């Protein structure tokens, strides 16, 4: 809620009226919440948004939940920062060069960049950050993304040089990871970054508060304060939104009607890949014809209509159109809904009458349970009798994802800035290849893509890899669904990214 | 104890006239008490006698106006010292209970409040009705307990009922009932639940009460042995009606109603060491299925043609001796 100025007390009971009144207070009556630059400044602008779960960790190097990133990317800046089109742009590094052999990255730091603690960001902090992530600071490695780093040094006070042991075309995209103050290990309690918003407080299962960091080197937009309410129950989130207690919250597609008039609706592709995963090591899924038959039997459009109310796009392989550079539209519809083709493939594989199968899914999201029901009906058309087993999320992670004990499952993988981590899931010896997909050709293409310094070659190789996946169907690639956000009409300029990120900097605010 | 009662010209202490107390639905009432009349003079003990279910307890409760849920007094009069009670409102009746008439119940085990000390239960009467202070009430409570025969009454004040025996509790009940010096004490089967030895103590206590304080007692009992020792006058009830009423000596020597005769025949008399028990055959009729005519007729060894025709009237066959039986149609009236 927008804070009323100190010294003014209004007998107001409704938070909605309080907001309205607060907005009417203009001019010298108010004392701004953060450092004043001008004598007459309007009341501070607060953005109140909702989050469905607690952050996994406030320490940016110990967090991997996209939900956390959505908020905390506002607190941290990297050497490079993500761009809305899926690229990276200079952040703490003012400029950088990559040697032609793809092994040496040289960064020139921007002058006058400060941490929220007030200390300037130095090359020492950058070196510390990279060393912490790769486990060269005495602690364990916190990210395998930096495994290829051989050496990092700071030849002068504004230059950092990172040398890789071998080329890694994804490395550039990893460099949006947060730069943190050297020697500071209490990020999980009180995060300190160099981003546009500084962390104020966190009360688990209650809220996170951020405030504009006035010494941020870039533009910070209109929002002075961010209050993130943690509301796990979707009904409660919707009610809070409708009561005017939130300015930005997700809305389930089937409830859009309740908020459409009152709020600005923002939609964006989630850059996720929602799949029907099959255990490629187990019969009958070890036969590609069976997987293709299933791919033909699945009507993706029907799923999108039924589960996402049409807010989604069909996929043909493991890549979302949110990554335009790597998305191949031609792969969509590789296996069109075709029951005859499905039936024929099943017959060829020796299953003319289909087979019974267990679809083991996590119950933590209605997306899975709803989709499972549609799939159950679709597969029944070709004689595949599906039994749906709903289990708890952490059981799914241990039984299905880690122990690979399943026949079929549903999962929705969130996207990354770089295609490699998205496509890596199908590499034979990758630890998280829980679908047990094995294809030497695929492994080789992926390795070449990773090591190729030339962006065009790399893009071509990733397309090839996707083509293999589209034809071989280690999983049925169903859809990327859209996020639907309801935003208070006074805010504008919501900018979607191909990763989870509410970029508060870019929001504009205009009182009604 | 204070005050001797005013002499004879005054009305009877208690006069019950045509009292009717019914239970159950209006269209099919259970006539527990169906026109009972008797009177009780100051200092006198009258016994209300009959088998269980004859309506004697309900009569006692009707006089107190403590008829249990589902029951209601539908007619008749209850006069205490000439004052009609039935038409009094609840507040006025509340003022009479405890002060002018008190009651002792059959079940000493459950009749006291288990969560209050003996002292509290006596003292609350003294404080509420007589306006005594806490200290005065405590002192008086101890005296009252001494009067009912507790050797160390002070120590008893702080005891809870569950620590006392049945006889002790009944004595506490009597002390409590007596506390405001009532003119009338209704004792409903006060000894039934007690051991024989204790029974005698309690009866002694009641007798002492009439003697010392001139309190009148309505003794409700099924035990004729108790009656012979205690009562001045006996009223015999059967199926909601008074069937015979006579001074104790007269009743025991010349019972007129076959039912009374039957009852007396059942008694193991104190004077006779051993007597053959001759129970009355049959059972008491259910109050909702009363026979027409004389209600005892179906069980009566001497019933004749007239008996089922109509309920016989209660007639006075000699001074103070009334009977409801066609065998004794005349009388002096």
């Amino acid at each position, binding site marked *: 809620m927008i804070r009323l100025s100190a010294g003014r007390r209004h007998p107001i009971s409704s938070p909605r009226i309080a907001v309205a009144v607060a907005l009417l207070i203009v001019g010298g009556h108010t004392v701004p919440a953060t450092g004043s630059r001008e004598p007459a400044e309007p009341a501070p602008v607060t953005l109140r948004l909702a989050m469905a779960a607690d952050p996994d960790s406030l320490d940016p190097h110990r967090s991997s939940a996209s939900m956390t990133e959505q908020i905390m990317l506002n607190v941290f800046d990297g050497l490079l920062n993500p761009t809305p089109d899926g690229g990276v742009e200079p952040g703490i590094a003012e400029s950088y060069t990559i040697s032609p052999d793809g092994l040496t990255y040289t960064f020139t730091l921007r002058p006058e960049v400060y941490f929220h603690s007030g200390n300037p960001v130095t090359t020492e902090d950058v070196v510390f950050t990279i060393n912490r992530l790769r486990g060269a600071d005495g602690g364990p490695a916190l990210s*395998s993304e930096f495994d290829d780093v051989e050496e990092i040094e700071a030849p002068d006070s504004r230059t950092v040089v990172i040398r890789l042991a071998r080329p890694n075309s994804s490395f550039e995209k990893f460099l949006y990871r947060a730069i943190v103050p050297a020697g500071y290990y209490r990020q999980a309690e009180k995060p300190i970054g160099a981003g546009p918003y500084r962390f104020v407080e966190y009360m*688990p299962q209650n809220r996170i508060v951020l405030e504009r960091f006035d010494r941020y080197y870039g533009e910070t937009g209109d929002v002075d304060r961010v209050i993130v*309410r943690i509301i796990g129950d979707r009904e409660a989130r919707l009610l809070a939104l409708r009561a005017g207690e939130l300015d930005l919250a997700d809305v389930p597609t089937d409830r859009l009607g309740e908020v459409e008039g009152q709020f600005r609706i923002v939609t964006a592709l989630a850059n996720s890949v929602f799949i029907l995963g099959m255990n490629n090591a187990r019969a009958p899924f070890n036969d590609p014809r069976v997987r293709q038959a299933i791919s033909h039997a699945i009507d993706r459009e029907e799923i999108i209509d039924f589960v996402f109310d049409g807010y989604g796009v069909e996929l043909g392989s493991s890549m979302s159109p949110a990554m335009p550079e790597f998305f191949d539209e031609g792969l969509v519809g590789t296996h069109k809904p075709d029951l005859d083709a499905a039936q024929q493939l099943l017959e060829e594989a020796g299953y003319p009458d289909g087979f019974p199968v267990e679809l083991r899914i996590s119950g933590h999201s209605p997306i899975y349970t709803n989709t499972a029901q549609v799939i159950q009906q679709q597969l029944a058309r070709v004689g595949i009798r599906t039994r749906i087993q709903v289990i708890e*999320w952490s059981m799914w992670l*241990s039984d299905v994802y880690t122990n690979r004990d399943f026949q079929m499952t549903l999962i929705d993988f969130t996207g990354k800035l770089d295609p490699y981590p998205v496509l890596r899931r199908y590499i034979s010896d990758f630890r998280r290849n829980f679908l047990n997909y094995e294809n030497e050709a695929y492994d080789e293409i992926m390795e070449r893509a990773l090591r190729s310094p030339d962006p065009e070659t790399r893009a071509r190789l990733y397309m090839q890899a996707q083509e293999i996946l589209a034809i071989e169907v280690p999983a049925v690639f169903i859809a990327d669904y859209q996020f639907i956000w309801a935003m208070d009409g006074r805010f504008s300029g919501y900018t979607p990214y191909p990763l989870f990120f509410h970029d508060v900097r870019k929001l504009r605010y205009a009182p009604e | 104890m204070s005050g001797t009662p005013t002499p004879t010209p005054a009305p009877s202490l208690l006069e019950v006239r045509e009292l009717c107390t019914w239970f159950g639905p209006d269209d099919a009432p259970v006539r527990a008490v169906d026109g009972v009349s008797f009177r009780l003079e100051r200092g006198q003990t009258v016994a209300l006698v009959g088998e269980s279910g004859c309506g004697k307890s309900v009569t006692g409760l009707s006089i107190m106006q403590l008829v249990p849920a589902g029951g209601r007094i539908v007619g008749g009069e209850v006069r205490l010292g000439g004052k009609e009670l039935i038409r009094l409102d609840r507040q006025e009746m509340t003022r009479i*209970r405890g002060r002018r008439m008190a009651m002792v119940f059959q079940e000493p085990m459950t*009749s006291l409040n288990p969560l209050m000390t003996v002292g509290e239960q006596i003292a609350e009467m003294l404080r509420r009705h007589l306006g005594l202070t806490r200290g005065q009430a405590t002192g008086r409570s101890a005296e009252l307990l001494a009067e009912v025969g507790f050797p160390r009454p002070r120590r008893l004040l702080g005891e809870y009922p569950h620590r006392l025996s049945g006889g002790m509790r009944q004595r506490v009940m009597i002390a*409590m009932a007596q506390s405001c010096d009532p003119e009338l004490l209704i004792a409903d089967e006060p000894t039934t639940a007690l051991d024989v030895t204790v029974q005698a103590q309690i009866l002694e206590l009641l007798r002492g009460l009439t003697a010392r304080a001139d309190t009148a007692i309505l003794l409700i009992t099924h035990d004729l042995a108790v009656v012979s020792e205690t009562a001045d006058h006996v009223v015999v009830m059967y199926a909601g009606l008074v069937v015979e009423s006579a001074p104790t000596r007269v009743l025991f020597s010349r019972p007129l109603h076959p039912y009374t005769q039957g009852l007396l025949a059942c008694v193991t008399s104190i004077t006779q060491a051993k007597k053959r028990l001759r129970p009355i055959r049959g059972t008491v009729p259910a109050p909702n299925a009363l026979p027409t005519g004389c209600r005892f007729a179906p069980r009566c060894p001497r019933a004749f043609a007239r008996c089922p025709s109509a309920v016989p009237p209660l007639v006075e066959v000699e001074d103070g001796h009334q009977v409801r039986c066609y065998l004794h149609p005349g009388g002096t009236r």
Partner: protein
Amino acid sequence: MSSTYLIRRLFSLATTLAVVALATFLAFEVIPGDPVLTMLGPDADPSLVAAMREELGTDLPLTARLANWVAGVLTGDLGTSIRYARPVGSLILDRVAVSLSVALLAMTAVVLVAIPLGIALAVRRSHWSEPFVATIIQVGMAIPSFWLGIILISVFGLSLGLFPTGGYVPFGAGLFASIRSVTLPAIAIAIPLIAVVVRYTRNSMIDQFSQDYVRTAFSKGFPVRHVVYRHVLRNAALPVITVLGMIFGNVVVGTIIIEQVFALPGLGLLLVTAVSARDFPLIQGLVLYITFFVTLFNLLVDLAYHVIDPRVELT
């Protein structure tokens, strides 16, 4: 009350806590699920997973973990939550403030509304009102708290704007705002409980009214008010106190559904999160706390019995 009694009860409390703690420990040994993976999700970086497992010692054998935990508890250290990277003790303590304020508010409402109402309904019984009252009580008890919560939010939060639709404001941020933030949840908790307690009070009173000592009290010439308040109430209180004690014990350790609907960071919500996150230190801490409170309330109810009813011996 004898001191041996208290010592015996405290000993049995300690035994209960130990048994419950061990049972929980073993239960989660059998139930699949990995705290690190659950927290970090399917996108977790393998290096990070390994680093955190190492740190948390989740790879240690059962006996070693149990020994570490017991040693910690005995020195007053409940360990560190995996999910929240904070000391379990302080995490629970933060939530106690929330759950306790909701519980106290709800229980105050229950006691102030249900007991007088139960007494009144017992004293003023009439044929025409009986089925009506019974229906209302039935409905009150049967209302799902989730639904009740949503209704309250819709009416008082959404339409009238009198209360926030959810969330919790700590005491520090203003007592009034803090109480306001727990009012609707407290009402949502209280309504079904009021129905339960009204029914208990009323039935208990009616039950007592048919007791012989009540007739005695009336025969002593006391008005209804005196009989009800001096005699019946204390006797009728015993079952009601048992129910109130049980209810308070349950409410004070958190109310999962209400906390979810109102986005209230209480103990219930914390427990749900702890279990689904397989946050073993937090689960253990919460189980200890909940067991302690429930046992404590049983003890208090027993003591209350003893104070009220001299027939109840503390053995």
